[in-house]
């Protein structure tokens, strides 16, 4: 060693505390769940109402934060999505009672609701706030506690949104720790928590790798993977209305929803019509050169060009070197024949919608089927009035939602159709998932079924089930309306007590 040594290595490796903190959050959630799992319906709805209101009030603010943190999407559209995950979501499920015991006198069965316990939820960067809102609402309605792990690119906004809802829930009587969010997410952290025996179910929304990891974790998981939606435009469709749907859907939040149309296919004879209609609806139809430029820009590197996710059509056009009018909402590259190998048929979370045309309906369906394999189990759209073809298309497509004459992004997610509003689209067996529906609170509850012998004739109505639920938090201590930090200085409290006593004594004096 020399006499004077300068050390370049860091003096001290401070161990990562985020994993340990996340584990503590899970334990805290388990405590919250212990109390919350017995709340009655009234108490549950009060909390749900409270987070809906809180979420609604700051939907716009969080939308702005999300866009500025992640660079994805459009503030106005995000605000709308956030709002949809408050009252709209609550109203949809308001009458679905997942709390009160169910009595089926005819079948001599009583069912008791048993919430999962601690839900571990992953949220994507593309819809951070809406997903937090949505999953928190699902947890509350099903009487579960939830720990959300946001995408690292959206962690600040997600944490704020979750804290905001948590405070609202607690103000309405929820135990503390019911809604929590990991501050410093990372892949090892997520893997550790997913594999932990302290959580009861995972709701994974995200990329294929993450979803597969959720399923391999050893814990029950509701995993939902990517989509690659195809819209089929039948010659029977009203092209003007269809084009408007497509452009609206594809430009909505710059197309970051996985339910967004990725490819639109029609029949050769209808292509000209559709192109014209799309153009009037605000789309830029690319010529061959523009199409090549877009393909190069979006898929020229390794895989999809990530910086394009959630960006506007104009921004992408500029990057790709395509000249478009300032009013352009969607870019439409055209691939003349529906081959499988064109990269433009892959999923694109940006307002780029590939148009192609088939010689006949059969070819269109075959192509749609293959394209959808890349986002299997997801969604598709059908435009037109021919119900025979609609049924045929739906029967053959490996998807669990076919949205008819509506924008696919809002339609499949339940906002422009009567499907359950969701940010977790079950991709079912076709997508190697355990749920094929839009995920809702009912997926987070199992029921204990008390089943009598077939020939028994017990009067089930006379059985007292009132002890199964409580009217809310049984004790003041866990009720965290009180601040978690320092209690009121007891010096102050003593002083107050003294003042009150004095006051009382004065009153007595007056009376005498």
């Amino acid at each position: 060693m020399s006499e004077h040594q300068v050390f370049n290595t860091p003096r001290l490796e401070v161990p990562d505390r985020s994993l340990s903190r996340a584990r503590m959050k899970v334990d805290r959630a388990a405590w919250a769940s212990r109390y919350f799992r017995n709340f009655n319906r009234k108490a549950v709805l009060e909390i749900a109402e409270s987070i809906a209101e809180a979420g609604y009030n700051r939907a716009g603010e969080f939308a702005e934060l999300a866009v500025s943190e992640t660079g994805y999407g459009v503030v106005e559209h995000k605000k709308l999505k956030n709002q949809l995950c408050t009252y709209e979501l609550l109203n949809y499920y308001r009458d679905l009672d997942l709390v009160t015991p169910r009595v089926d006198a005819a079948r001599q069965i009583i069912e008791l609701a048993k919430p999962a316990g601690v839900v571990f939820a992953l949220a994507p960067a593309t819809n951070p706030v809406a997903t937090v809102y949505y999953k928190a609402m699902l947890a509350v309605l099903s009487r579960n506690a939830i720990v959300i792990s946001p995408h690292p690119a959206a962690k600040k906004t997600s944490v704020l949104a979750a804290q905001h809802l948590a405070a609202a829930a607690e103000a309405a009587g929820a135990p503390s720790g019911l809604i929590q969010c990991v501050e410093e997410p990372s892949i090892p952290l997520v893997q550790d928590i997913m594999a932990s025996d302290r959580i009861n179910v995972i709701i994974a929304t995200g990329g294929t790798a993450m979803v597969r990891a959720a399923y391999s974790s050893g814990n029950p998981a509701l995993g939902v993977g990517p989509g690659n939606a195809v819209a089929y435009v039948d010659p029977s469709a009203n092209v003007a209305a269809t084009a408007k749907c497509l452009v609206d859907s594809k430009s909505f939040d710059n197309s970051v929803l996985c339910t967004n149309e990725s490819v639109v296919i029609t029949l050769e004879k209808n292509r000209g019509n559709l192109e014209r209609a799309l153009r009037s609806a605000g789309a830029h139809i690319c010529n061959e050169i523009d199409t090549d430029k877009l393909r190069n820009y979006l898929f020229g590197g390794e895989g999809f060009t990530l910086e394009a996710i959630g960006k506007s059509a104009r921004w992408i056009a500029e990057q790709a070197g395509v000249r478009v009018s300032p009013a352009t909402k969607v870019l439409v590259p055209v691939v003349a024949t529906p081959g499988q190998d064109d990269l433009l048929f892959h999923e694109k979370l940006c307002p780029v919608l590939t148009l192609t045309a088939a010689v006949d309906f059969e070819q269109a369906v075959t192509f749609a089927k293959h394209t959808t394999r890349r986002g299997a189990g997801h969604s598709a759209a059908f435009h037109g009035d021919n119900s025979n073809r609609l049924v045929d298309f739906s029967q053959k497509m490996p998807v669990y939602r076919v949205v008819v004459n509506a924008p696919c992004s809002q339609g499949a997610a339940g906002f422009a159709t009567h499907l359950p509003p969701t940010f977790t689209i079950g991709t079912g067996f076709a997508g190697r998932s355990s749920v094929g529906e839009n995920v809702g609170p009912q997926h987070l509850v199992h029921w204990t079924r008390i089943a009598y012998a077939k020939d028994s004739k017990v009067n089930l109505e006379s059985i007292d089930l009132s002890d199964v639920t409580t009217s809310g938090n049984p004790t003041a201590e866990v009720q965290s309306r009180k601040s978690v930090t320092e209690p009121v200085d007891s010096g102050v409290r003593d002083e107050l007590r003294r003042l009150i006593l004095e006051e009382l004594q004065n009153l007595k004096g007056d009376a005498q």
Partner: protein
Amino acid sequence: MQKAAEYWNPGKVSFWTEAGTPMVIDRREGYFLYDMSGKRLIDLHLNGGTYNFGHRHPELVEVLKSGLDYFDMGNHWFPSVARAAFAEQLVNTAPHTKYAIFGAGGAEAVEIALKTARYATKRKKIVSIIKGYHGHSGLSVATGDERFSKIFLADQPDDFLQIPFNDADALESVLKGRDVAAFIIETIPATYGFPMPNDGYLKACQDLCHKYGTKFISDEVQTGLMRTGVMWGWQGYGLKPDIFVCGKGLGGGIYPISACLVTEECGQWLVEDGAAHISTAGGSELGCLVGHHVIEMLQRPEVISNIKFVTEYFAQSMKEMMARHSDFFVGVRQRGVVLGLEFDHPEGAVAVSRALYENGVWAIFSSLDKSVLQFKPGVVLDVDTCQEIIDRFDAAMPRARQILKSGRRVA
């Protein structure tokens, strides 16, 4: 066992054998201990809060391990980054204090506290409560029960006075002479079985001390570190002790460290002669590193919330247990995760401790009041383990009853 009796401590070995809890701890992890045969015990003794976060908490172990790549104990003569940072952090938890002085164990911190009070007042006498416990070194042992001082001829009845707990008048009568340097008291006397201070008692004591120029010292060795629901027990009673000491869990159960915090006025000796108290192992840098992390962990919202849940859970379930076993389980003393369970028999807690041990739970009776069981759950206990503790507790009660009955007949 034989070797332990032969070479280590025959008294302790035979005591635990007779008590029916001949435990030799092998592995330890979280809130679990395993004896040499592999039998698992849930630890509710925690050595008075030393294992507040459980045994070998992974985060703390990692801190210590990585600390070893850079630090050692350090040179106690010189300033150091670790000591300065830790002292600042501690003082921030108690803003009315000014300096943190480090030791290696609780008794040493008490020693520093008593010396500081003597320095600040230029008086010699120390008052403590009967059945208080402040450690076993020279000055600290003199404040405690005579069982521990007489045997070593360490009792100093002239300078060390003892008064009954929860009796402010008794305190006033000894302070009146204005020759007492300090009154030292555990915020909740642990070894006495956690009897709760009466409303206003501690505040009255502090006021009396100030009235007569005596320093008020809080021993927070068992009540500090969030165990009563706040960082320091005195905070919950609206006190501002002139001096307070903490130890045990401060080192996370993996590296011994203790601290004595003093106000600016009391700490003037540090200005006059900083080397007046010196300790090679006191405030070792590794200890400071671990201690710093312990305090940081205790301040996390997750931990604070967990403590509330554990507190509430045991408040609730002990009420139920008491109702179910009211024939001899007669009272619960609780503040935060510090609990004393009262049994209707002078040796009741010894029997319950043994019955719990047989049922896989380790909780120790109070040395100075064997009718009270010390029941000290950790701050990050999870809901399942808490439930299991109560289930085992319930199962152990009939056995405790049986032990007591047979004991009574023998007696």
